[in-house]
Every structure is written in structure tokens, then in C-alpha cells.
């Protein structure tokens, strides 16, 4: 069965090096590459203000735009990719997508300044857990460089 690599990404300059590494890995292993964007509207709990606009759809569209940018980077490198936008808590969604899409390798970058949820400690812990629970290879990146590989 062909290898399937999953690369969750949030777009922007900070993620380009990690995307490129995932693309290179997919090319090297002749694997399928799937880019994933996960949105979470938990932050709306910071306000009690009501609104009728569908902010989740707005974020989905933003996620799709980010993933199309990643897809175009892959196409330039001659790698065909799929993209998927999901909603929810990141680690739960990640586990679900790994199982549904029969993923063999996950490539995830950690935030440089420790901002956002993908801090290095969080990503390493997640990698360890997912690798043990689901039996997949989990590669932790920082600026496109491999920091750690969890492989059961």
C-alpha cells in the first residue's frame, strides 16, 4: 500500500519551510501528501457578544485558501496533493483524520517563538502519544529541520 503523509499546517511564512520539507519527503518516498487545516472557534468564548454571521464558514474559507497556497507549492515541486479543512480540537481532529485517511506518516512543525498551540513541548508530546496509540510515524519539524521522529 502506498505511503500517505499528512501535513497539518496553518499557513504563513513560518510554515513554508515545514511545508517544503513535507513536500520533499513525499517526493522522496513517492508518497501521497495530504495538507490539513483545523479551525477552532473556542476563542469566541472570550466574548459574550452574539452574532449571527457564520464565522466557522469564514474560517473554513480562510483555511482552504491557506491549503491551496500549500498545494501550489507542492505542484511546483511536482508533487500532487489533497487538501482537507476540518473543525474542532486539534489533537482529536488529527487522530480522526489519521484513521480515516489511513495515514502512515505525520509531519508537524512547532512554533518558533512558542506562540499558538503548537509549542515544541506540545508537538513532541502529541507525536509520542499519536505514534504509540495509532502506530504511525510522527516527524517533528522546526524551520524545516527534523527535530525528532517518533516511530513505534
Amino acid at each position, binding site marked *: 500500500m502506498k505511503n500517505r503523509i499528512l501535513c497539518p499546517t496553518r499557513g504563513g511564512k*513560518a510554515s513554508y519551510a515545514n511545508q517544503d520539507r513535507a513536500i520533499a519527503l513525499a517526493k522522496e518516498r513517492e508518497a501521497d501528501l495530504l495538507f490539513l487545516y483545523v479551525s477552532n472557534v473556542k476563542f469566541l468564548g472570550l*466574548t*459574550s457578544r452574539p*452574532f*449571527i*454571521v457564520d464565522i466557522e464558514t*469564514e474560517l473554513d474559507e*480562510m483555511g482552504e*485558501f491557506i491549503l491551496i497556497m500549500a498545494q501550489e507549492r507542492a505542484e511546483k515541486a511536482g508533487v500532487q496533493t489533497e487538501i482537507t479543512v476540518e473543525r474542532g480540537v486539534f489533537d482529536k481532529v488529527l487522530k480522526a483524520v489519521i484513521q480515516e485517511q489511513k495515514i502512515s506518516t505525520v509531519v508537524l512543525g512547532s512554533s518558533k517563538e512558542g506562540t499558538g498551540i503548537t509549542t515544541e513541548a506540545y508537538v513532541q508530546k502529541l507525536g509520542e502519544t499519536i505514534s504509540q496509540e495509532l502506530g504511525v510515524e510522527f516527524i517533528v519539524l522546526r524551520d524545516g529541520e527534523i527535530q525528532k521522529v517518533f516511530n513505534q
Partner: protein
Amino acid sequence: MKRIQTIAAACEPFLRNRYLKIGVLLVLCTLLLSGAAAVSVRAGLASQQEPGYLISGRLEDPQGQPVSEADISARLPGQSEPLAEAVSHEDGSWELLLPGIPERPLTIEISRPHFNPHFLNIGMADLRQVQDSGLWLGVIELERHISAGFWVATAVFLAVLLLIAFEVLHSTTAALAGFSTIFLVSYIGGAINPNLYIFSFERGLSYINWEVIFLVMGMMVVIAIIEGTGIFQWMAFQAYRLSRGKSWLLVLILMLITAVASALLDNFTTMLLMTPISLQIALAVGINPLALIIPEVLASNVGGISTLVGTPTNILIGAYAGIGFNDFLINQTLGVIIALVGMGAFVLYYYRKEFSKRSGGISPRLYQKLESNARIERADALWKSAVVFGLVLIGFVLGERVHLVPAVPAMAGATLLLIWLKPDIHKMIKAVDWTTLVFFMALFIVVGAIQEVGLISIAAAGMGRLIGQNLPLGVFVVVFGVGTLSTAIANIPLTASMLPIVNFLSGSIPGASSNVLYYALSMGAAMGGNGLLIGGEANLVTAGITQQTSSPISFKEFLKIGLPVTYLTLGVGFLWLLIRF
């Protein structure tokens, strides 16, 4: 009868049109209300023409503020039944109508909670004057009585502020806790020890400014309809097209859009909808998304100052001080524009490295995606809501000529949109921020309690001594003091507490009757929100959206640009007010 039938036949084609029917109905309602108002005014005039002998005066507290709702009675010595009774009006004035001229001197007794009782003896010579032309007793200063209720109200008010500031309780829960404590102490405590009495439930309700409640409610419905049309996203995309890859121009256009949208609608909604599309545009242009989004949120916080409906604090100030839509436009807009120009220059300097990057352009596929994400969702709803919103604005501008309070055009506009667009009424009612409205109501009562017991007057007098007769110093203290406090404290309770103080200062500092201190309060409260990430809900929700990307707004990143911008705009605002007034 035949004539009526002819008129009805002539009108029939017009009445077939349902919109005309609605219009006719609205006109009829207006005429009926006008008629009812005229009748009630006439009835009021008639009731004032009762026969009697007049003794009048005006009550003030030691700080020169009018004392309303004081009980005034005229008694003959040794008699328990008063000859006449009256209650002082909002401006402190009162009138006693004696049914006849007594043959011996009488005593006038003035009593009111939180003031010492005051007695005036009216001798025979005065009574002769009452008989001839009526007697004007002039301004009577009542002495404050610092009761146990004073300390309870003060403690409750401070507790509410602290609970909100340290986020121990949600602001609405904190205000409701204050509301409940004040009335429980007033009624149960007051029954045990009269010194604990603060005010009655009815008196407490009189502190709720219903104009604010209905104006906010009406505008929320109008905004809820407009926000679903996709206009914000479309405008952001047009900014991208117009700028042709020049990111410095793009940021200026986006700042202008958010400032104008916040002035007319609401900065929270504006940023909620502008942030995702701006993030995409920043990625398309190839710059750090924060270089677009932080300036947008800063502009949205300042832009709202220019109109009555731009910020909740302006609505509070406008309703309290009777400052109308036109007054805000005339006295604030140019100052806000100058502050925005200063802010724009600072932003261009701060992000100069980002803005010097040249965009490599995006693929046709990405451009198409961006265009599709920024499409107008409901063109029909957009033009209808634009028409109604235009009418609401006209109502704000022209309504002042007939003393039409802004809440009326706002509510009428909301109602017209509900009739015209027929949205799901349950959904629209949910769009009203009841949490904030309940917060407003409870807060008005808590602030009313400290006003009632005299804390505000004492604080205002203290501030008055600090500022003296120096108006520029007063403007400086209000702009920078409130601005600094607003960086960390929720600006709505802060503004609500400051209003009576500013009212006192406006009456005591020469030249301040121009309302300049209210404008200073408006600028300080809104501009201060830019200082810290926690300074406003729009800041927090924008940061929340950026956390969905690899460019999240951190507390430190926001502070680095937000704090200098805050003091820059406060400085511009202060200078503007000095020039304007």
C-alpha cells in the same frame, strides 16, 4: 360619504403595494402619536393652572448639583397635617401651592434620604409677599449626611469594579450582584437600621437610561442584518485590488475601511469579519498578516469615536449629556481623522520592512478563491439594508431638529428591516446582545446608588479641587486619565462612573459647558482600548482568529505597537479638543 368613496377609490392602486401600505401605516402611527402628545401637553398645562399662593425655590447639594425628589412640606406649628406638599424636580426646583394665607408664621421642612433635614421659617412679612406676588426662596443648599448606606453603596461599587477588572465574575454577573446587594441592603437592612437605606426600587429604576438600551438594541438588529451580506469581505477585496500589490497603500485603505465601518456600525463585528479575509490578503501579498491586522484593529477602536453610534461609550455619553449625532460629527470627526493620519504614519514606520516587500502576485486559482471568499452573499438584503441604514442616519441627523432621540430612528430602522426582509425573528432577537443590555441596566443602578448617596459629588468635588478652574488641565486629566485606565479596565463601567463627575466638572470649570470634557471622556475611553490586547473585545476576537494561523497576535506584539499608538492618538485628541474648544 360619496367623497370618501372617491378618495378610497383613488388610493386603491397605491394601497395594493405592500410597501406603500407599510409607509401609510407608519405615517398614520406618527400622526396619532403626535396628536396624543399634543393632547397630553394641553392637559399638563391645564393642570398647572390650579389656584393657590406660591412659594418656590431650588435645592442644591454642597457641590452645587441639583437635588431632585426631595419632600417639601409647609406646616403650621403644632399641626401634624401639612398645609401643602411638593417634590423637587430634576433641576432641583420646587413649588409649594398654599391653599390660603395662614394667619401665623409657618415652617417649611425639606427632607430627603442622604441629606440632613432642613427647616425654613416663613414669617408674616414673607407671607404677605406670598399673597402679593409669590415668594422665591432662592437656592437652598442641603447638607450631606454620610450614612451607613453611603459606605455600603461605595463598597458595592468598588467590589463590582474589582470583580470585573480581575475577571473574577463576568461583567454582567458582577453588575447584577451589585444591583441585588444594593436593593437587599436598602430594603432589608433599611428596615432594621434606617441609616442603611440607599434608595427605593422605583428610584433605582429611574437611573436606567432607556435611551441607551433602545439605541443599542435597534442598532444591533440593523448591524446583524448588514453583517450577513458579505459587504465587509467585499470591501477588503476591493482594497486588495485597488492597492495593486502596494502593501503600504493596502494597509491604509484597510485602516480607512475599518475606521469608517466602526464609526457607522460596530468595531467588534467589523473585525470579526475583516480579519479572516485580511489574513488571506496578507498571505497573497506576501507580508506578515499582523502588519495588516493590528493596524486594522487599532483603526477600528479609534474610528468609532467619530459618531454617536460608533462605540457603546459614545452612546452612554450622548444619552447622558444630550450630545447628538451631529454634535459628535462636528466636534469629533476631524480630530479622529487627524488621529488616524498620525496612526497611519506610525504604522507605516513601524512595519516599514514589511511594506517595502514587493508582492510576487498570486496564481489565477488563488485570486479566484480570494474573490469567491469575498463575494457579496445577499445582494438583495444588502441594498435594502443600505436604504434603511441611510434612513436611520438621516433620522439621526435631522431628528435633532424635532428633539427626536436617536433610539427612535434606530428602533424604527430595525423594525422596518424586520418587516421588509422578513428574517427569522428568533434569530434576530438572538443577535441582540442581551448580556450587554442587562449589564448596562444593572450598572446604571449601581452607579445610580453611589450618585444617590453622594459619593460621585464628593469625588467630583475632589477632582474639581485638583483641576481648579483650568479647563486645559481638566481636558488633559480626563483624556489621559481615562485613556490610561481604559487600557486595562473595561471602558463601559469606567465611562458610566465618570459621567456624573464630568457633569459636575462641566458645570464648575469656566468654558466647560461646551461639553468638551464629555468629548475628552469619549476619546480617552475608546483610544485607551488600543493600549493592551485585553483593552477591548475587538482586540481579543481578532487575536483569537489570528491564533488559527501561524501568525498569532501575542500580548507583547500588540503592546509594542498598541501602547505608542494609544498615547499618540490621545495626544492628538487632546490637542484637537484644545483647538476645537
